[in-house]
């Protein structure tokens, strides 16, 4: 470890020790503030997973039921931070589906349609990718 890093860690530990020595009342007040702030961040709609009541995927006119009950998909925040997806509208969700072998690697040649119902108020357009 470099000398600079050692110094930084030393200062960090000294600060920690200072905070540890604060009166308990003050420390609890800080814990409460941190908790309130975390809850506020967590309540942001971007962090809420989209829950679908039902989902049916149609490929070439054939219905492929994908789940029996409510299904959670990615949160909008995860979606926006995803490295594998590009050009996804911010109000979209991604649904990963497994398709029978007969449909091959690409859905491009099949007319596809997705019907779903959301529990969350989010309006969504669908982008479908095949899971390989």
């Amino acid at each position: 470890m470099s000398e600079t890093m050692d110094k930084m860690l030393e200062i960090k530990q000294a600060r920690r020790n200072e905070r540890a020595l604060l009166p308990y009342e003050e420390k609890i007040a800080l814990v409460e503030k941190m908790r309130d702030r975390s809850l506020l961040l967590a309540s942001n709609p971007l962090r809420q997973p989209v829950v679908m009541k039902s989902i049916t995927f149609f490929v070439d006119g054939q219905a492929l039921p994908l789940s029996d009950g409510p299904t959670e998909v990615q949160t909008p925040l995860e979606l926006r931070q995803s490295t594998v997806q590009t050009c996804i509208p911010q109000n979209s969700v991604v649904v990963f589906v497994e398709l029978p072998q007969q449909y091959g690697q690409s859905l491009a040649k099949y007319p596809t349609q997705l019907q779903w119902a959301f529990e969350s108020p989010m309006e969504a357009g669908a982008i479908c990718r095949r899971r390989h």
Partner: protein
Amino acid sequence: MSMDQTLRVINQMQADGVIGPYAIGGAIAATFYLEPTSTFDLDIFISFNKNANEIVNLGPIYEYLKQRGYKPKGQYITIEGWDVEFLPADDQLYNEALSKAQPAQIHGVNTYVMTPEYLMTIALKTGRPKDFIRLDQFIQAKSYDADKLRDVLARNGLLQKWEKFNVSYAERTK
């Protein structure tokens, strides 16, 4: 949201005979001795008067709280904005931790908090990554009595695990 209302409800539970002696454990108790860290829940360890072959029944606690409008949420029950987990002190270590807990006041409300030596021993026994991080914090802050800790560890058969932890701590921090 302030924790004092939550503790008032818990103290009332004790006064009403729903629970016996209790002590705060987990991250909130650790905050008593360490720098404050963010946490969402409040761990309350409670004693149970039961025979060895009886199963711990938290039903009366949940019933009491539900009657007063508090709702269960997974393993927690939300009391005045805080998710509280009631944990039975159902073995020697937890019983000792409960009996040695020290009185404290949070926003003027009387309560009991586990001592650092017991918090460390429980963390070592539980052994999740976050428990080991807490052990690191205790060691770095030097906020415990080493002799008392060894006594507690020895009584609960955890000395060997402690030595092993110390070796890994020394390797990680050299």
